[in-house]
């Protein structure tokens, strides 16, 4: 039945699929209508990506969900949305069920929770197929496997029988995409499809979506807050703020000639990778990838810190980063090409992807004789065993030093052990091997009690400002607690100090009596910073301090942070997954992978001249908020991705 309508009205390339006029979404909250979005007008054409961009609370998600009738029961949609001649708003639920998953399908943000944990990946794809198409189980399975191959899942026959928790984040998102594509929808809504993923996985998914876009000829609505992703994918862009459309236009218009001040502000706020580096960022063009091998070859010989043993390793298993020549006419068999080159015995001294040795850029070799705020000497850190769970070693053989007053960025993807190091430096996790020296004192093996006097000199800012403040205490009390505990400060003296700190983080002093839930994310993070700085620590651990914040808020918090760092002069270990943020804030960058420190060097060295293939992969995967540049980078990225995926 649905098949028939499709063939009748098969849209040609570029013809409008969805026309939205004056769409609005309202919620019934505390006995009144509360507008989440209004006056949306847009058209989605076949084979085109329309990006709806906005920060949290802009109504971007809700307006798209209203197309499918997936609003919660207290939500109402008004206006009109016509999909190939069918009005979607106000469609009775029975008919809407025929549209969902068939004509319009959705890719959700969180692949972990968006797939049903008790059914296999294959079953969930088959289910979608069989709801809409009249096919038997074996045919459906065939098609599901085809789809899984389409989204490039390794061993589809195996994975078909896997449960979601047995798949990696990227694979889950691929299953999600396969499921969304099952009935060849005319319109695909991708709701923050890569937000929950690591940057390299995000790059893979973006690449996949681009390929599918050209193959499938469906219209795509991409909902995201990430300007880099937008630059990578979008043809046209809608910028939303607080339920209103502030600007629409093509990607070029929005990025190069933004009209609305909010758009401009938004673009300015995005940290731009390579902003602090003279010369180009690695991965800006394909040349980087090609030439990197030769450059490193030379360096490898002159670099005194280069570990000699690695050379022999590298020559045997070359090929990871040697994506090699012929970039201009890059074809799909590039991988094969590079392998050929590797086999031909190119003179490279590179590091293998799985190498666990640390590469020290010149000047970054840890010198433990100098005074330092933090030293990790061949340190290994474990999560202790609890119950039947065995102890888990999250960081191995780390050599790292932070000089007083220096900001070092620690970068890695989830599970790389970067947070582990931060927690160990605070004595929250035990250092089991090597040594951990904080401000000249070894903290290895100290108990909580013995740690207490040392705690004056170390502060921490946590990732989630909502979780790092005690919800039952007024924020003033949270800020003042270290003073009370360490210096016994009380009464008016304490109040004065707390007010001083609030002023320092640019918050009104009246806020001290507020509770965390009354503050916005940015305000909470400022409180978090104030609290960390209460005792004027010599070392500050900042664990993803801005990753939970909207980009415009993030920019402000980073500004504040930089100002305070100059003023207070503390050394800082700045942990983040976002290379652009780290580059902006840190003097040196350390890169972690699977619990090993793989590369460390000056920010400019690491960003423009990475040596470890993983760093290269990481750098090339970061999308930059600039469509033209991103187009160049994309090619380099795809090359690196292909070369290193299975390395």
């Amino acid at each position, binding site marked *: 039945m649905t098949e028939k309508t499709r063939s009748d009205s098969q849209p040609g390339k570029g013809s409008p699929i969805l026309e939205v006029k004056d769409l609005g979404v309202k919620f019934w909250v505390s006995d009144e209508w509360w507008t989440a979005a209004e006056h949306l007008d847009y058209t989605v054409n076949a084979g085109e990506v329309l990006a709806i961009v906005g920060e949290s609370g802009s109504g971007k998600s809700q307006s798209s969900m209203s197309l499918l009738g997936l609003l919660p029961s207290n939500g109402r949609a008004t206006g009109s949305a016509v999909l190939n001649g069918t009005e979607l708003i106000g469609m009775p639920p029975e008919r809407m069920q025929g549209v969902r998953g068939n004509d319009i399908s959705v890719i959700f943000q*969180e692949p972990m929770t968006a797939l049903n944990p008790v059914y296999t990946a294959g079953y969930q794809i088959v289910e979608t197929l069989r709801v809409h198409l009249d096919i038997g189980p074996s045919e459906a399975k065939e098609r599901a496997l085809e789809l899984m191959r389409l989204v490039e899942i390794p061993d589809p026959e195996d994975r078909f029988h896997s449960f979601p928790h047995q798949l990696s984040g990227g694979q889950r998102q691929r299953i999600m995409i396969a499921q969304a594509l099952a009935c060849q929808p005319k319109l695909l809504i991708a709701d923050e499809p890569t937000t929950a993923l690591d940057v390299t996985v995000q790059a893979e998914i973006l690449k996949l979506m681009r390929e599918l876009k050209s193959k499938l000829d469906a219209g795509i609505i991409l909902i995201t807050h990430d300007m880099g992703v937008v630059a990578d994918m979008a043809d046209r862009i809608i910028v939303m703020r607080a339920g209103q459309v502030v600007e629409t236009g093509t990607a070029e218009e929005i990025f190069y000639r933004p009209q609305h001040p909010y758009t401009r502000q938004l673009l300015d706020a995005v940290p731009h990778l390579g902003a602090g580096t003279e010369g180009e960022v690695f991965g800006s063009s394909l040349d980087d990838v090609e030439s990197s091998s030769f450059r490193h070859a030379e360096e490898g010989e002159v670099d005194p810190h280069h570990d000699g043993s690695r050379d022999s390793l590298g020559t045997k298993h070359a090929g990871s980063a040697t994506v090699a020549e012929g970039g201009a006419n890059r074809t799909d068999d590039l991988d094969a090409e590079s392998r050929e080159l590797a086999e031909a015995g190119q003179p490279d001294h590179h590091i293998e992807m799985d190498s666990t040795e640390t590469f020290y850029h010149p000047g970054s070799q840890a010198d433990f004789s100098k005074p330092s705020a933090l030293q990790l000497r061949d340190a290994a850190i474990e999560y202790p065993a*609890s119950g039947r769970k065995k102890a888990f070693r999250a960081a191995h053989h780390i050599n790292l030093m932070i000089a007083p007053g220096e900001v070092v960025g620690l970068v890695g993807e989830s599970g790389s052990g970067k947070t582990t190091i931060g927690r160990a430096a605070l004595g929250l996790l035990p250092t089991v091997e090597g040594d951990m020296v904080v401000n000249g004192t070894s903290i290895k093996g100290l108990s909580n009690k013995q740690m207490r006097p040392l705690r004056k000199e170390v502060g921490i800012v946590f990732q989630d400002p909502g979780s790092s403040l*005690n919800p039952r205490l007024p924020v003033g009390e949270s800020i003042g607690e270290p003073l009370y505990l360490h210096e016994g400060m009380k009464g008016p003296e304490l109040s004065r100090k707390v007010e001083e700190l609030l002023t320092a983080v640019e918050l009104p002093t009246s806020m001290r009596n507020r509770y965390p839930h009354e503050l916005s994310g940015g305000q909470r993070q400022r409180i978090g910073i104030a609290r960390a700085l209460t005792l004027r620590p010599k070392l500050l651990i900042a664990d993803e301090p801005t990753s939970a914040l909207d980009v415009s808020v993030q920019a402000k918090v980073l500004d504040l942070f930089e100002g305070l760092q100059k003023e207070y002069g503390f050394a800082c270990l700045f942990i983040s997954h976002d290379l652009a943020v780290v580059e902006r804030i840190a003097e040196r960058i350390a890169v972690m992978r699977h619990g090993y420190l793989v590369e460390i060097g000056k920010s400019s060295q690491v960003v423009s001249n990475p040596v470890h293939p993983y760093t290269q992969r990481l750098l090339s995967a970061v999308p930059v908020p600039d469509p033209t540049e991103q187009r160049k980078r994309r090619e380099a990225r795809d090359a690196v991705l292909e070369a290193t995926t299975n390395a």
Partner: protein
Amino acid sequence: MSTNNDNQNALALDEVRDNAIESKETEGLSQGKIVLRKFLRHKGAMISIIVLVLVAVFAFSAQGIAGLPGWWKYSHTASGQVLNPGGAPTWSFSNLFSLGEHPFGQDEIGRDNFARVMKGTQISIIVMFIIGAVCLIIGTTVGALAGYYRGWIDSVLMRITDGFIILPVIVVGSILGVLVGGSSGPMLGLALGCILWTGLARLVRGDFMSLREREFVDSARVAGASDFRIMFKHMLPNAMGVIIVNTTLIMSQAIVLEASLSYLGFGIQPPGISLGQLISEYQTSFATRPWLFWWPGLFIIIIALCVNFIGDGLRDAFDPRMKTIPSWRKMKKAERMAQKGAK
């Protein structure tokens, strides 16, 4: 836990948007005040509190307590002349409504049933609160220690709770009831409190385990707080919801348990008096003097039901997921109005 909450919200509104709405509702209030406000809005719980307080005031004032005399003219021990045939209740609808001498009736030796039920209610309420208090103290302490320290302390404490959970409470209760025996309500309360705390301990332990992973606990430790301060200043207030709600629910179980034990003859025994004991004493006379059976039973149910509803109200109030329930009727009305306006 918190990730689940977020998922829940994902359908409703963007999370921050959600906060915006929430903070609109809760501007300038501490968590405690928000909980109180939500609780005050819970109709069932409010009615229950009023009823429960009335029952308690009535029971304690009618028979007096600790030597103080009550206002009711009969004592629960004094026998007297049987007025109505069989001692039936004397209230009637002649002259609109009159209570008569013995509104709840009398037993076969002419004791006033109202006096006895009020005295029984007193004792049952006292036992209930003692059980609640004992459970609160033991359960919270054990749960907090096990959840915070984990490791062997946790294992040992949890094996101990296993020991209590392996047998029905009524069985262990019977044995303890016989042991402390006889007519003392408070002693029975203490004994029963010692076996009912296990569920609470498990829940508090779970709560502490998840609170331990929260960053504010780390941040308190980094600030230099001692274990004791972290547990009681930082974690305990955040576990208060679980503790209060479950203590209430334990109390509703407690009153029924006390009644059951007394009914079986292992709880409060004559001359001691409690609601369960009254039913036990009079059950054989159900056919002839049903009022002796109905009244104490009714009071047990009223008290237990009220406590249950209060617990439910508290649970909703402490649950961060529970927002004010949107009123569908008002929403429909507003929609209709809007449609009319459009036409």
